[in-house]
Protein backbone atom coordinates (compact mmCIF):
# COMPACT_ATOMS: atom_id res chain seq x y z
CA UNK A 1 0.00 0.00 0.00
CA UNK A 2 2.70 2.40 1.05
CA UNK A 3 4.81 1.60 -1.97
CA UNK A 4 1.80 2.22 -4.16
CA UNK A 5 1.38 5.66 -2.62
CA UNK A 6 5.08 6.29 -3.14
CA UNK A 7 4.83 5.21 -6.72
CA UNK A 8 1.89 7.51 -7.27
CA UNK A 9 3.75 10.46 -5.80
CA UNK A 10 6.78 9.70 -7.95
CA UNK A 11 4.63 9.71 -11.06
CA UNK A 12 2.13 12.28 -9.85
CA UNK A 13 4.39 15.03 -8.58
CA UNK A 14 6.19 15.83 -11.83
CA UNK A 15 2.87 15.49 -13.61
CA UNK A 16 1.05 17.98 -11.38
CA UNK A 17 4.06 20.29 -11.65
CA UNK A 18 3.84 20.07 -15.41
CA UNK A 19 0.12 20.88 -15.43
CA UNK A 20 0.66 23.67 -12.91
CA UNK A 21 3.53 25.14 -14.92
CA UNK A 22 1.62 24.96 -18.18
CA UNK A 23 -1.33 26.68 -16.53
CA UNK A 24 0.82 29.45 -15.14
CA UNK A 25 2.51 30.00 -18.47
CA UNK A 26 -0.84 30.16 -20.21
CA UNK A 27 -2.07 32.71 -17.65
CA UNK A 28 1.02 34.82 -18.26
CA UNK A 29 0.20 34.74 -21.96
CA UNK A 30 -3.41 35.80 -21.37
CA UNK A 31 -2.23 38.58 -19.08
CA UNK A 32 0.20 39.78 -21.72
CA UNK A 33 -2.56 39.89 -24.32
CA UNK A 34 -4.78 41.87 -21.94
CA UNK A 35 -2.02 44.40 -21.23
CA UNK A 36 -1.35 44.73 -24.95
CA UNK A 37 -4.65 46.55 -25.32
CA UNK A 38 -4.07 49.03 -22.53
CA UNK A 39 -1.99 52.16 -22.83
CA UNK A 40 0.81 53.11 -22.73
CA UNK A 41 2.35 51.59 -25.85
CA UNK A 42 6.06 51.52 -25.39
CA UNK A 43 7.26 51.57 -28.96
CA UNK A 44 10.89 52.14 -28.02
CA UNK A 45 11.02 49.01 -25.88
CA UNK A 46 9.57 47.00 -28.75
CA UNK A 47 12.21 48.34 -31.13
CA UNK A 48 14.93 47.48 -28.65
CA UNK A 49 13.69 43.91 -28.47
CA UNK A 50 13.33 43.65 -32.23
CA UNK A 51 16.94 44.68 -32.42
CA UNK A 52 18.03 42.28 -29.72
CA UNK A 53 16.06 39.22 -30.78
CA UNK A 54 16.11 39.89 -34.51
CA UNK A 55 18.97 41.94 -35.80
CA UNK A 56 21.51 40.52 -33.40
CA UNK A 57 20.49 36.99 -34.41
CA UNK A 58 20.92 37.64 -38.13
CA UNK A 59 24.49 36.40 -38.48
CA UNK A 60 23.69 33.17 -36.64
CA UNK A 61 20.61 32.64 -38.79
CA UNK A 62 22.48 33.26 -42.04
CA UNK A 63 25.15 30.76 -41.06
CA UNK A 64 22.66 28.16 -39.88
CA UNK A 65 20.47 28.53 -42.96
CA UNK A 66 23.31 28.41 -45.46
CA UNK A 67 25.04 25.38 -43.98
CA UNK A 68 21.81 23.48 -43.50
CA UNK A 69 20.93 24.01 -47.16
CA UNK A 70 24.40 22.97 -48.26
CA UNK A 71 24.45 19.81 -46.19
CA UNK A 72 20.93 18.98 -47.22
CA UNK A 73 21.91 19.21 -50.90
CA UNK A 74 24.75 16.75 -50.39
CA UNK A 75 22.60 14.31 -48.46
CA UNK A 76 19.64 14.34 -50.83
CA UNK A 77 21.97 14.01 -53.82
CA UNK A 78 23.05 10.61 -52.50
CA UNK A 79 19.47 9.38 -52.60
CA UNK A 80 18.41 10.94 -55.90
CA UNK A 81 21.52 9.95 -57.82
CA UNK A 82 20.61 6.29 -57.20
CA UNK A 83 17.77 6.58 -59.70
CA UNK A 84 19.15 9.38 -61.82
CA UNK A 85 16.94 12.16 -60.49
CA UNK A 86 19.73 14.51 -59.32
CA UNK A 87 17.86 17.51 -60.70
CA UNK A 88 15.27 17.02 -57.91
CA UNK A 89 17.80 18.13 -55.29
CA UNK A 90 16.76 21.77 -55.65
CA UNK A 91 13.11 20.92 -55.09
CA UNK A 92 13.79 18.91 -51.99
CA UNK A 93 16.16 21.44 -50.48
CA UNK A 94 13.72 24.30 -51.05
CA UNK A 95 10.76 22.31 -49.77
CA UNK A 96 12.63 21.05 -46.74
CA UNK A 97 13.98 24.47 -45.88
CA UNK A 98 10.66 26.26 -46.36
CA UNK A 99 8.40 23.80 -44.59
CA UNK A 100 10.59 22.34 -41.88
CA UNK A 101 14.27 23.09 -41.44
CA UNK A 102 14.05 26.86 -41.79
CA UNK A 103 11.50 27.47 -39.03
CA UNK A 104 12.68 24.72 -36.66
CA UNK A 105 16.41 25.30 -36.83
CA UNK A 106 16.23 29.07 -36.80
CA UNK A 107 13.82 29.06 -33.84
CA UNK A 108 16.05 26.71 -31.90
CA UNK A 109 19.02 28.96 -32.59
CA UNK A 110 17.08 32.02 -31.47
CA UNK A 111 15.82 30.16 -28.37
CA UNK A 112 19.41 29.38 -27.46
CA UNK A 113 20.63 32.90 -28.16
CA UNK A 114 17.79 35.25 -27.23
CA UNK A 115 15.38 33.06 -25.24
CA UNK A 116 18.10 32.25 -22.73
CA UNK A 117 19.08 35.92 -22.48
CA UNK A 118 15.45 36.90 -21.87
CA UNK A 119 15.23 34.44 -18.99
CA UNK A 120 18.54 35.52 -17.51
CA UNK A 121 17.64 39.19 -17.71
CA UNK A 122 14.11 38.96 -16.32
CA UNK A 123 15.22 36.36 -13.77
CA UNK A 124 17.97 38.64 -12.48
CA UNK A 125 15.46 41.44 -12.21
CA UNK A 126 13.22 39.15 -10.19
CA UNK A 127 15.83 38.03 -7.68
CA UNK A 128 17.25 41.53 -7.21
CA UNK A 129 13.79 43.00 -6.56
CA UNK A 130 13.83 45.09 -9.73
CA UNK A 131 10.48 43.60 -10.68
CA UNK A 132 9.12 44.67 -7.29
CA UNK A 133 10.56 48.09 -8.00
CA UNK A 134 8.59 48.23 -11.25
CA UNK A 135 5.41 47.39 -9.37
CA UNK A 136 6.32 49.98 -6.76
CA UNK A 137 6.73 52.61 -9.47
CA UNK A 138 3.22 51.71 -10.70
CA UNK A 139 4.54 50.15 -13.90
CA UNK A 140 3.13 46.75 -14.74
CA UNK A 141 6.09 44.38 -15.29
CA UNK A 142 4.14 42.11 -17.63
CA UNK A 143 3.41 45.09 -19.83
CA UNK A 144 6.87 46.59 -19.49
CA UNK A 145 9.02 43.46 -19.75
CA UNK A 146 7.04 40.56 -21.19
CA UNK A 147 4.84 42.24 -23.79
CA UNK A 148 7.64 43.83 -25.88
CA UNK A 149 9.61 40.60 -25.91
CA UNK A 150 6.71 38.40 -27.01
CA UNK A 151 5.58 40.95 -29.55
CA UNK A 152 9.11 41.24 -30.93
CA UNK A 153 9.40 37.44 -31.11
CA UNK A 154 6.23 37.20 -33.17
CA UNK A 155 7.33 39.92 -35.56
CA UNK A 156 10.93 38.91 -35.92
CA UNK A 157 10.87 35.13 -36.13
CA UNK A 158 9.07 34.93 -39.52
CA UNK A 159 11.58 37.40 -40.95
CA UNK A 160 14.50 35.41 -39.62
CA UNK A 161 12.87 32.31 -41.05
CA UNK A 162 12.61 33.93 -44.48
CA UNK A 163 16.30 34.77 -44.29
CA UNK A 164 17.16 31.21 -43.28
CA UNK A 165 15.08 29.72 -46.09
CA UNK A 166 16.61 32.09 -48.62
CA UNK A 167 20.16 31.34 -47.49
CA UNK A 168 19.46 27.61 -47.38
CA UNK A 169 18.13 27.63 -50.92
CA UNK A 170 21.16 29.55 -52.14
CA UNK A 171 23.45 27.20 -50.23
CA UNK A 172 21.72 24.20 -51.75
CA UNK A 173 22.03 25.67 -55.23
CA UNK A 174 25.71 26.33 -54.72
CA UNK A 175 26.43 22.78 -53.62
CA UNK A 176 24.09 21.20 -56.16
CA UNK A 177 25.15 23.15 -59.22
CA UNK A 178 28.69 24.32 -58.51
CA UNK A 179 30.04 21.39 -56.53
CA UNK A 180 27.99 18.38 -57.57
CA UNK A 181 27.55 19.59 -61.14
CA UNK A 182 23.78 19.24 -61.49
CA UNK A 183 22.40 20.94 -64.57
CA UNK A 184 21.60 24.50 -63.65
CA UNK A 185 18.45 24.86 -65.76
CA UNK A 186 16.94 21.56 -64.63
CA UNK A 187 17.74 22.35 -61.01
CA UNK A 188 15.90 25.68 -61.12
CA UNK A 189 13.08 24.51 -63.38
CA UNK A 190 12.11 21.68 -61.07
CA UNK A 191 12.45 23.85 -58.04
CA UNK A 192 10.06 26.42 -59.51
CA UNK A 193 7.62 23.80 -60.70
CA UNK A 194 7.24 21.82 -57.48
CA UNK A 195 7.68 24.42 -54.77
CA UNK A 196 4.75 26.79 -54.10
CA UNK A 197 4.46 29.94 -52.15
CA UNK A 198 2.06 27.90 -49.97
CA UNK A 199 5.01 25.81 -48.77
CA UNK A 200 6.77 28.95 -47.74
CA UNK A 201 3.69 30.34 -45.96
CA UNK A 202 3.38 27.07 -44.13
CA UNK A 203 6.84 27.59 -42.68
CA UNK A 204 6.11 31.23 -41.91
CA UNK A 205 3.11 30.21 -39.78
CA UNK A 206 5.34 27.79 -37.91
CA UNK A 207 8.01 30.44 -37.39
CA UNK A 208 5.45 32.85 -35.97
CA UNK A 209 4.23 30.28 -33.48
CA UNK A 210 7.79 29.34 -32.53
CA UNK A 211 8.64 33.01 -32.04
CA UNK A 212 5.78 33.21 -29.58
CA UNK A 213 6.86 30.01 -27.83
CA UNK A 214 10.48 30.94 -27.29
CA UNK A 215 9.76 34.45 -26.01
CA UNK A 216 6.86 33.29 -23.83
CA UNK A 217 8.89 30.46 -22.31
CA UNK A 218 11.87 32.77 -21.85
CA UNK A 219 9.77 35.39 -20.10
CA UNK A 220 7.85 32.87 -18.04
CA UNK A 221 10.96 31.13 -16.74
CA UNK A 222 12.52 34.48 -15.91
CA UNK A 223 9.43 35.91 -14.30
CA UNK A 224 9.09 33.02 -11.85
CA UNK A 225 12.78 32.66 -11.04
CA UNK A 226 13.56 32.00 -7.41
CA UNK A 227 16.72 31.75 -5.38
CA UNK A 228 19.52 34.11 -6.34
CA UNK A 229 22.20 33.62 -8.95
CA UNK A 230 21.90 29.83 -8.87
CA UNK A 231 18.19 30.17 -9.52
CA UNK A 232 18.83 32.38 -12.53
CA UNK A 233 21.28 29.82 -13.94
CA UNK A 234 18.82 27.00 -13.49
CA UNK A 235 15.92 28.96 -14.95
CA UNK A 236 18.01 29.80 -18.03
CA UNK A 237 18.83 26.15 -18.67
CA UNK A 238 15.22 25.12 -18.17
CA UNK A 239 14.10 27.87 -20.49
CA UNK A 240 16.21 26.68 -23.41
CA UNK A 241 15.30 23.03 -22.90
CA UNK A 242 11.59 23.75 -22.58
CA UNK A 243 11.59 26.07 -25.60
CA UNK A 244 13.28 23.48 -27.79
CA UNK A 245 10.97 20.69 -26.66
CA UNK A 246 7.88 22.81 -27.20
CA UNK A 247 9.12 23.94 -30.62
CA UNK A 248 9.50 20.30 -31.70
CA UNK A 249 6.15 19.28 -30.25
CA UNK A 250 4.33 22.19 -31.86
CA UNK A 251 6.18 21.51 -35.08
CA UNK A 252 4.52 18.13 -35.16
CA UNK A 253 1.11 19.51 -34.23
CA UNK A 254 1.29 22.27 -36.84
CA UNK A 255 2.59 19.94 -39.52
CA UNK A 256 -0.21 17.44 -38.89
CA UNK A 257 -2.73 20.25 -38.80
CA UNK A 258 -1.62 21.96 -42.03
CA UNK A 259 -0.76 18.74 -43.89
Amino acid sequence: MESLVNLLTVIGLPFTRLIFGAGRMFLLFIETVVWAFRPPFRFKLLLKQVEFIGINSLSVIILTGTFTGMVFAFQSYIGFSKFGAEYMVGTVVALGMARELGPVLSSIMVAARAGSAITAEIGTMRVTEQIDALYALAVEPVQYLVLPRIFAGIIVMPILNAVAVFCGTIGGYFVGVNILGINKTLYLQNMYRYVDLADFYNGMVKATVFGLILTLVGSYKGFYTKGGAAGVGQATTESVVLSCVLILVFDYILTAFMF
Partner: protein
Amino acid sequence: MISGVDIQIEVKNLHKSFGDFKVHKGIDLLIPKGAITVILGPSGTGKSVLLKQIMGLIMPDKGEILVDGVDITKLDKKELVAVRKKFGMLFQNAALFDSMNVYENVAFPLREHTKLKEKEIRDIVIEKLRVVGLKDVEYKMPSELSGGMRKRVGLARAIALEPDIILYDEPTTGLDPIMKDVVDNLIYNTQKKLNITSVVISHDIDSTIKIADYVAMIYDGKTVINGTIEDLRTTDNPYVQQFLSGSMDGPIKIF
Protein backbone atom coordinates in the same frame (compact mmCIF):
# COMPACT_ATOMS: atom_id res chain seq x y z
CA MET B 1 -1.80 55.92 21.59
CA ILE B 2 -2.82 57.39 18.28
CA SER B 3 -6.06 59.35 18.31
CA GLY B 4 -7.56 62.50 16.93
CA VAL B 5 -5.56 62.42 13.71
CA ASP B 6 -6.34 61.41 10.14
CA ILE B 7 -5.15 57.93 9.32
CA GLN B 8 -3.52 57.29 5.96
CA ILE B 9 -2.77 53.60 6.30
CA GLU B 10 -4.38 51.11 8.62
CA VAL B 11 -3.26 47.51 8.93
CA LYS B 12 -5.69 45.15 10.67
CA ASN B 13 -4.91 41.68 11.96
CA LEU B 14 -2.34 40.93 9.26
CA HIS B 15 -1.10 37.36 8.87
CA LYS B 16 1.61 36.18 6.53
CA SER B 17 3.54 32.92 6.27
CA PHE B 18 6.22 31.70 3.92
CA GLY B 19 5.68 27.93 3.86
CA ASP B 20 5.55 26.87 7.49
CA PHE B 21 7.32 29.97 8.66
CA LYS B 22 4.95 32.53 10.18
CA VAL B 23 6.30 36.03 9.70
CA HIS B 24 3.24 38.01 10.77
CA LYS B 25 0.80 36.70 13.34
CA GLY B 26 -1.69 39.51 13.59
CA ILE B 27 -0.13 42.91 12.99
CA ASP B 28 -2.22 46.00 13.74
CA LEU B 29 -0.86 49.33 12.71
CA LEU B 30 -2.04 52.89 12.33
CA ILE B 31 -0.07 55.28 10.17
CA PRO B 32 -1.23 58.88 10.54
CA LYS B 33 -1.46 61.21 7.57
CA GLY B 34 1.08 63.99 7.06
CA ALA B 35 3.60 62.70 9.58
CA ILE B 36 6.64 60.49 9.88
CA THR B 37 6.07 57.06 11.36
CA VAL B 38 9.13 54.98 12.16
CA ILE B 39 8.82 51.22 12.36
CA LEU B 40 11.36 49.57 14.62
CA GLY B 41 12.10 45.95 15.20
CA PRO B 42 14.93 43.46 15.34
CA SER B 43 16.39 42.07 12.12
CA GLY B 44 14.27 39.39 10.50
CA THR B 45 10.95 40.26 12.16
CA GLY B 46 9.32 41.04 8.86
CA LYS B 47 9.56 44.81 8.52
CA SER B 48 10.45 44.69 4.85
CA VAL B 49 7.73 42.12 4.22
CA LEU B 50 5.27 44.43 6.00
CA LEU B 51 6.22 47.35 3.78
CA LYS B 52 5.84 45.22 0.66
CA GLN B 53 2.40 44.16 1.77
CA ILE B 54 1.38 47.78 2.33
CA MET B 55 2.22 48.46 -1.32
CA GLY B 56 0.51 45.31 -2.52
CA LEU B 57 3.77 43.72 -3.71
CA ILE B 58 3.14 40.69 -1.50
CA MET B 59 -0.38 39.58 -0.67
CA PRO B 60 -1.14 38.80 2.98
CA ASP B 61 -2.67 35.46 3.96
CA LYS B 62 -5.25 37.16 6.14
CA GLY B 63 -6.11 40.64 7.31
CA GLU B 64 -6.85 44.04 5.85
CA ILE B 65 -4.65 46.86 4.62
CA LEU B 66 -6.55 50.10 4.25
CA VAL B 67 -4.96 52.89 2.26
CA ASP B 68 -7.13 55.99 2.47
CA GLY B 69 -9.91 53.69 3.62
CA VAL B 70 -9.65 51.29 0.66
CA ASP B 71 -8.71 47.69 1.39
CA ILE B 72 -5.94 47.05 -1.13
CA THR B 73 -6.00 43.30 -0.58
CA LYS B 74 -9.32 43.23 -2.44
CA LEU B 75 -8.27 45.22 -5.50
CA ASP B 76 -7.53 43.82 -8.92
CA LYS B 77 -4.24 44.47 -10.70
CA LYS B 78 -5.38 47.52 -12.57
CA GLU B 79 -6.76 49.18 -9.43
CA LEU B 80 -3.56 48.34 -7.58
CA VAL B 81 -1.52 50.18 -10.19
CA ALA B 82 -3.62 53.27 -9.50
CA VAL B 83 -3.11 52.95 -5.73
CA ARG B 84 0.64 52.49 -6.14
CA LYS B 85 0.86 55.82 -7.89
CA LYS B 86 0.30 57.39 -4.47
CA PHE B 87 3.42 55.67 -3.19
CA GLY B 88 7.13 56.05 -3.49
CA MET B 89 9.35 53.34 -2.09
CA LEU B 90 12.99 53.01 -1.25
CA PHE B 91 13.94 49.35 -1.19
CA GLN B 92 16.34 48.02 1.39
CA ASN B 93 18.79 47.06 -1.38
CA ALA B 94 17.79 50.08 -3.51
CA ALA B 95 16.60 47.80 -6.36
CA LEU B 96 17.95 50.10 -9.08
CA PHE B 97 17.38 49.04 -12.67
CA ASP B 98 20.81 47.75 -13.55
CA SER B 99 20.30 48.13 -17.29
CA MET B 100 19.87 51.89 -16.88
CA ASN B 101 22.30 54.53 -15.72
CA VAL B 102 21.68 56.70 -12.66
CA TYR B 103 20.01 59.43 -14.69
CA GLU B 104 17.59 57.03 -16.37
CA ASN B 105 16.78 55.38 -13.05
CA VAL B 106 15.72 58.64 -11.43
CA ALA B 107 13.99 59.82 -14.61
CA PHE B 108 12.08 56.54 -14.94
CA PRO B 109 9.00 57.43 -12.84
CA LEU B 110 8.89 60.88 -14.44
CA ARG B 111 8.94 59.43 -17.93
CA GLU B 112 6.33 56.83 -17.07
CA HIS B 113 3.84 58.99 -15.22
CA THR B 114 4.25 62.57 -16.40
CA LYS B 115 4.28 64.37 -19.71
CA LEU B 116 7.20 66.57 -18.76
CA LYS B 117 9.63 67.71 -21.41
CA GLU B 118 13.17 66.38 -21.43
CA LYS B 119 14.49 69.68 -20.12
CA GLU B 120 12.10 69.64 -17.13
CA ILE B 121 12.91 66.02 -16.40
CA ARG B 122 16.60 66.86 -16.49
CA ASP B 123 16.14 69.67 -13.96
CA ILE B 124 14.18 67.45 -11.58
CA VAL B 125 16.66 64.59 -11.83
CA ILE B 126 19.66 66.82 -11.16
CA GLU B 127 17.84 68.49 -8.29
CA LYS B 128 16.82 65.18 -6.68
CA LEU B 129 20.33 63.83 -7.02
CA ARG B 130 21.67 67.01 -5.47
CA VAL B 131 19.42 66.77 -2.40
CA VAL B 132 20.66 63.24 -1.73
CA GLY B 133 24.22 64.53 -1.95
CA LEU B 134 25.17 63.13 -5.35
CA LYS B 135 26.63 64.94 -8.29
CA ASP B 136 28.46 63.95 -11.46
CA VAL B 137 27.22 60.39 -11.24
CA GLU B 138 24.35 60.68 -13.74
CA TYR B 139 26.03 58.57 -16.39
CA LYS B 140 27.35 55.86 -14.12
CA MET B 141 25.71 52.46 -14.12
CA PRO B 142 24.39 51.11 -10.80
CA SER B 143 27.12 48.46 -10.75
CA GLU B 144 29.72 51.23 -10.64
CA LEU B 145 28.32 52.76 -7.44
CA SER B 146 29.03 52.05 -3.80
CA GLY B 147 26.26 50.62 -1.62
CA GLY B 148 25.57 53.95 0.03
CA MET B 149 25.47 55.76 -3.31
CA ARG B 150 23.07 53.20 -4.69
CA LYS B 151 20.80 53.71 -1.72
CA ARG B 152 20.77 57.44 -2.30
CA VAL B 153 19.97 57.01 -5.99
CA GLY B 154 17.09 54.77 -4.89
CA LEU B 155 16.01 57.54 -2.57
CA ALA B 156 16.12 60.11 -5.36
CA ARG B 157 14.02 57.81 -7.54
CA ALA B 158 11.49 57.27 -4.73
CA ILE B 159 10.96 60.99 -4.18
CA ALA B 160 11.16 62.05 -7.83
CA LEU B 161 7.39 62.16 -8.32
CA GLU B 162 6.79 63.69 -4.90
CA PRO B 163 4.19 61.04 -4.03
CA ASP B 164 1.63 61.28 -1.19
CA ILE B 165 3.20 58.45 0.75
CA ILE B 166 6.85 57.49 0.85
CA LEU B 167 8.05 54.21 2.30
CA TYR B 168 11.71 54.05 3.25
CA ASP B 169 13.23 50.65 4.02
CA GLU B 170 16.29 51.35 6.16
CA PRO B 171 17.33 54.54 4.37
CA THR B 172 20.40 55.17 6.51
CA THR B 173 21.77 51.67 7.02
CA GLY B 174 25.22 51.48 5.49
CA LEU B 175 25.78 55.23 5.28
CA ASP B 176 28.55 57.13 7.00
CA PRO B 177 27.53 59.37 9.94
CA ILE B 178 27.48 62.54 7.88
CA MET B 179 25.43 61.00 5.08
CA LYS B 180 23.14 59.51 7.70
CA ASP B 181 22.43 62.99 8.96
CA VAL B 182 21.94 64.27 5.41
CA VAL B 183 19.39 61.53 4.69
CA ASP B 184 17.62 61.99 8.03
CA ASN B 185 17.27 65.67 7.29
CA LEU B 186 16.11 64.90 3.78
CA ILE B 187 13.35 62.62 5.05
CA TYR B 188 12.38 65.18 7.64
CA ASN B 189 12.41 68.14 5.25
CA THR B 190 10.65 66.30 2.43
CA GLN B 191 7.85 65.48 4.81
CA LYS B 192 7.59 69.02 6.17
CA LYS B 193 7.81 70.66 2.76
CA LEU B 194 5.22 68.51 1.01
CA ASN B 195 3.20 67.46 4.05
CA ILE B 196 3.27 63.85 2.91
CA THR B 197 3.02 60.66 4.90
CA SER B 198 6.34 58.96 5.49
CA VAL B 199 6.98 55.49 6.80
CA VAL B 200 10.55 54.74 7.75
CA ILE B 201 11.96 51.39 8.75
CA SER B 202 14.93 51.84 10.99
CA HIS B 203 17.22 50.23 13.51
CA ASP B 204 18.63 53.52 14.54
CA ILE B 205 17.28 54.90 17.81
CA ASP B 206 18.99 58.29 17.50
CA SER B 207 17.60 59.09 14.08
CA THR B 208 14.21 57.75 15.13
CA ILE B 209 14.06 60.23 17.96
CA LYS B 210 15.25 62.95 15.61
CA ILE B 211 12.71 62.48 12.83
CA ALA B 212 9.74 60.46 14.11
CA ASP B 213 6.32 61.82 14.97
CA TYR B 214 4.96 58.34 15.54
CA VAL B 215 6.60 54.99 16.14
CA ALA B 216 5.69 51.35 15.93
CA MET B 217 7.66 48.35 16.99
CA ILE B 218 7.24 44.87 15.56
CA TYR B 219 8.43 41.76 17.32
CA ASP B 220 7.63 38.09 16.82
CA GLY B 221 4.99 38.80 14.21
CA LYS B 222 3.01 41.22 16.34
CA THR B 223 2.84 44.92 17.03
CA VAL B 224 4.50 45.65 20.36
CA ILE B 225 3.82 49.37 20.41
CA ASN B 226 2.18 51.86 18.04
CA GLY B 227 2.03 55.40 19.34
CA THR B 228 3.68 58.79 19.46
CA ILE B 229 7.36 59.30 20.03
CA GLU B 230 6.41 60.33 23.55
CA ASP B 231 4.73 56.95 24.09
CA LEU B 232 7.98 55.29 23.10
CA ARG B 233 9.95 57.20 25.69
CA THR B 234 7.54 56.60 28.54
CA THR B 235 6.44 53.03 27.89
CA ASP B 236 7.29 50.34 30.39
CA ASN B 237 6.97 47.63 27.76
CA PRO B 238 9.99 45.38 28.35
CA TYR B 239 10.47 44.60 24.65
CA VAL B 240 10.68 48.27 23.76
CA GLN B 241 12.96 49.04 26.66
CA GLN B 242 15.33 46.26 25.73
CA PHE B 243 15.40 47.38 22.11
CA LEU B 244 16.01 50.99 23.07
CA SER B 245 18.78 50.12 25.47
CA GLY B 246 20.32 47.75 22.95
CA SER B 247 20.86 45.10 25.55
CA MET B 248 21.28 41.38 25.03
CA ASP B 249 19.30 40.58 28.14
CA GLY B 250 15.54 40.75 28.14
CA PRO B 251 12.45 39.22 26.58
CA ILE B 252 13.70 39.57 22.96
CA LYS B 253 15.35 36.29 22.20
CA ILE B 254 18.57 36.02 20.25
CA PHE B 255 19.38 32.57 19.02
